[in-house]
């Protein structure tokens, strides 16, 4: 190999070493651009080697060209690799400097909500809708004759003492004391078809307003009328409801009771779903919660509704959505419901 040969090849090697050394010193993209201009630009030594190739001896040309290519490729590869490293480092630095306090509060859209009673009512509607019960509504101001008479409360009957009534200045008109007048209206509406409805709505009783009693409250009543409805169906239907409204293993029990518009009549208790029947404050350590009254529709009520009680039978049940809401959410004061304090309403 001639001296000239060796000289050029050594120079190229020196350029490679120098360039790679310089590349390691690059800190940012500007350094990289400068480096590229210097070592891979038109005036760069490697490029000059290509320029000088035509001056070299023809037999040396392949050797020098090969070497120059090798160095150029190596430098380009090093630039790509090192450039990526510099970019990553820069991104890391940028992310590290851009950190939020994620515990600061977010920007909430204003959230509306349904009244807790509406929420409970909706749940009751949904469960019974799936069992084929439709909602049927009637008025809150009602005739005495329908609130009581059609429901088998004869005038002067002691059962009238069970419900303290708000009367209006028209002696025939009162504020309904229960949703049961809806039974009469529903029968008159559906007759002679069978009936499967729920009757929700506001009712009124003359009470002192205290943490446990209100002058107005909602009721939801069930009414089924058909040719083949049994007491067992009543219990089974209520049990299905309880299993969905509370927990699937909630036990129920029925106690005999008296309502003029049903016979037999019963009070239904559910095993306390707070303590599982072991006894707690909510169930007053009894293990049971009284949640609804029910029974088989009284023959006189069926007859008043247009259904022959020898042929038809039916059942009815009534519950208080406020009471159920109170039990579910441990609300101990019923006055919250119509108090409309946003601090109460916004918890639901």
């Amino acid at each position, binding site marked *: 190999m001639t001296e000239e040969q060796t000289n050029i090849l050594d120079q190229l090697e020196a350029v490679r070493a120098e360039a790679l050394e310089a590349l390691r010193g690059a800190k940012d993209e500007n350094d990289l651009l400068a480096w590229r201009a210097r070592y891979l630009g038109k005036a760069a030594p490697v490029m000059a080697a290509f320029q000088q190739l035509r001056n070299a001896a023809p037999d040396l040309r392949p050797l020098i060209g090969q070497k120059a290519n090798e160095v150029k490729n190596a430098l380009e590869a090093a630039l790509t690799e090192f450039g990526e490293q510099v970019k990553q480092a820069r991104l890391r630095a940028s992310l590290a400097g851009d950190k939020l306090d994620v515990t*600061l*509060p977010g*920007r909430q859209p*204003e*959230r*509306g*909500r*349904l009244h807790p009673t*509406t929420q409970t009512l909706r749940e009751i509607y949904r469960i019974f809708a799936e069992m*084929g019960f*439709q*909602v049927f509504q009637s008025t*809150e*101001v009602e005739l005495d004759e329908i609130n009581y008479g059609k429901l088998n409360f004869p005038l*002067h009957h*002691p*059962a009238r*003492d*069970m419900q303290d009534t*708000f*009367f*209006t*200045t*028209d002696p025939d008109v009162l504020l309904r004391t229960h949703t049961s007048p809806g039974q009469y209206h529903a029968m008159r509406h559906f007759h002679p*078809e*069978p009936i*499967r409805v729920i009757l929700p709505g506001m009712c009124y009783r*003359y009470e002192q307003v205290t943490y446990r009693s209100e*002058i*107005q409250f909602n009721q939801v009543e069930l009414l*089924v009328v058909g*040719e*083949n*409805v*049994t*007491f*067992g*169906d009543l*219990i*089974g*239907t209520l049990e299905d409801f309880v299993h969905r409204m509370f927990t699937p293993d909630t036990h129920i029990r*029925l*106690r*005999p*009771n*008296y309502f003029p518009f049903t*016979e*037999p009549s019963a*009070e239904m208790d559910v095993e306390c779903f707070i303590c599982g029947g072991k*006894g707690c404050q909510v169930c007053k*350590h*009894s*293990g049971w919660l009284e949640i609804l009254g029910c029974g088989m529709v*009284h023959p*006189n009520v069926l007859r008043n509704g247009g259904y022959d009680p020898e042929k038809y039978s039916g059942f009815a049940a009534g519950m208080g959505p406020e009471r159920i809401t109170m039990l579910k959410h441990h609300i101990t004061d019923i006055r919250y*419901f119509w108090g*409309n304090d*946003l601090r109460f*309403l*916004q918890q639901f």
Partner: protein
Amino acid sequence: MKLPISWLQDYIDISDYDVEALAHLLTMAGLEVNSIQLVGLPMPEESTHEFKISGLSWPKDKFVVAQVNEVLPHPDADKLTLCRLVDDEGEHIVLTGAPNIYHLKGIGPLEKPLKVAYAKLGAELYDGHQPGWVLTKLKKAKIRGVESSSMVASEKELGISEEHEGIILLPDDAPTGMALAEYMGDAVFDIEILPNNVRNACVYGVAREIAAFTGRALKPLDLRYEEAGDSITGQAMIEITDPALNPRFVVGLLKGAQTVPSPYHVQRRLRLAGVRPINAIVDATNYAMLEIGEPLHAFDYDILTRRAGGKAPTIITRTAAQGEKLTTLDGVEHTLEDYTILVTDTAGPLSLAGVMGGLESEVQDNTANVLLEGANWNYVNIRRLTKKEHITTEAAYRFARDLHPSLALDGVKLGLRYMQAWAGGTIAKGLVDNYPLPYSEPVNTLSVDFVRARTGIPAITAREIADLLARLDFHCSVSGDTVTVTAPGYRKDISEGVVGKADLLEELTRLYGYNNIPHTRLADTLPPQKPNFGFEMRNRLEDLLSALGMTQTISYRMTNPADEARVLPEQSVLDDSHYVVIANPSTPEWTVMRRSLLHALLKTVEKNSRVDERIAVYEIGPVFLPVAGEKLPNEEHRLALALSGVRERGSWNRAARKNDWIDFYDLKGVVEAMLQLATAEVTYEPAEHPSFHPGKCARVLCGGVELGVFGELHPQAAEHYTFGKAPVLAGEFDLVKLIEALAPKRELVPVPNFPPVLEDLAVVVDEETSAAAVEAVIRKGGGDLVTEVRLFDIYRGAQVGAGKKSLAYALTYQSMDGTLSDKDAAKIRKKIIGRLEYELKAKLRE
């Protein structure tokens, strides 16, 4: 009803039941036990109780029967005495201040030793000297030099009654040393008697229920007594004027009785049952009533004779003359209505039949001869009287619930038996029993198929039906698959026909056990399902408003006219003819049913104005509008909306802007969003409504139908409420019309496949020209190709001149058929501008 359970033991053996087990049995039978008061019996051991239990237990090692052999004087205190007594452990000297043994002080060993209730060291009992029921524990102490660590107890100290005048003196045969709880421990059940269950408002009725549910033997009533006197015939006569009001009247006669106190156990039971002991004669009537449920009345026979001018008295029952007067034994003079049934004699009224005796003829301190009444009355008349006169007596309570006439006879017999046993005397032979309207027991027939079909008890047989009902004394005869059932002769709550069958089903299922009936699912035909548009849309509207950030409220529906008048600036109070008026309001606040849902919601805003800086609420519900000539009001359902407070809450990076209150356009935005998918074009017009600011009130129409109004509350109306600084925006809508406007009937507008052209347009118009007018002209000018017109700026000022405003719009041009060219857009723009200039004298603002 208060029932000391020891009394039950006279008729049925329940000694193996603890109090909770017994209460559970009764509750599950339909005799709900509300609470249990222990009077000596031990507290059940479980930590959780099905029943509310209070009262005092007497541990066997702390409370015993003791015998006082001598009453010694206290060496250092004149009012105190020392009892030398013996209990199960030996002799003790016990200090007492009891006045009822004071007279025995220092007379030496007693000839007839006293039996007392003795509480030992460590016993817990009630402090007799403190009002109410304060527990105290007996400790070692010295009182005036004498050691005192135990005591002889009064009824109050043992929790039997409030009685603390002296110590209890037990009957002579009380066994010394016996645990007191064993001797007379008791528990009082407070039992809820259902309206159709008056037969169980007595000891014997409850015992009968226990017998039916346990199968245990019920001891028969002992109605026997010795009749040693002359025949009653001719000594008392009875005339019943109206048998429908007084189906039966029975009297017996006892002569030579004494008004002595009743035996201790009688007095104790009466007190535990809530009845004050008086004397043996009166106590016997009450005791018999509590035992079998028939109220009795004892007349002083000599007074009746005197009133009859020395002749045998004649009792006459009749209704009162309107305005007739009678003073009852509580000293109250009653002016009577003509439906009141009276017991009278030839000299005038004696008592309010079945309710309360008269003052004059009641048993006196020196009564010796007693005419005892047991009768039966029409419950309707009794009830009307007690309701009108606000009388509650044990007698009226029972008669108003319709007693069976058989009880009149049994009652008189039982009353005479006890009266003679406790007050002495001689009973006249026979009774006068006037029974003009005998009650015949209803007979019903039940078929097995009917019972199975109604109860859901699948395989019950005729024999089983008969056996179950026989447990409650129904007389049953089985023939094939039917059972013929005759009701027992002491209850009137069983009817005939289809109602009678229901009555029997109730008793049958009750005895079978409600909780033993198989639970089944409805197998009957599913009724035809009907549309329920209004109800479903109401739910959707609630969801929509909640999604728009509004919180649902529910208010009291009662109000008073003056309060509701606050919603109007001049506060003119409507008279009662505009309202559904409550005849018996519970408070002056709530005298009528509301007419304004808006007012109800404004009260909610008022209430929360200090609770929250931003209020967004709505309520859906009825208002009650009387209709001339109609019994019932129109219950018009409405929606009310209200907004007030800051537009945006302050935040850590967004300072609250001062006085940036929610205004008209925020509420309008909610209304627009609510009606975004309405069935027809929604338009807004300036409106006048007394509750709203005249310049900030709009009427909303959908397809020309008015849905409601909204706006900023009139400042004069707002003054009537306590609001915060922010204006209150509110509105009231007709729910039915709103729901119709929101019916989901819209047809899809296809989504375009071509790009739109967007451009801005600013025009200067007169101040009076409404934005709605400008938009309408833009749409008219541009035609169908203008798909969106959005106002994004309003400018007033020097650049446009006085009385003018500049409105800047972002317009969207869109064709369904292709991409619009610049030339197309320029054409549309030119048309729009031409229209604006021509119709509104508008000028383009470059």
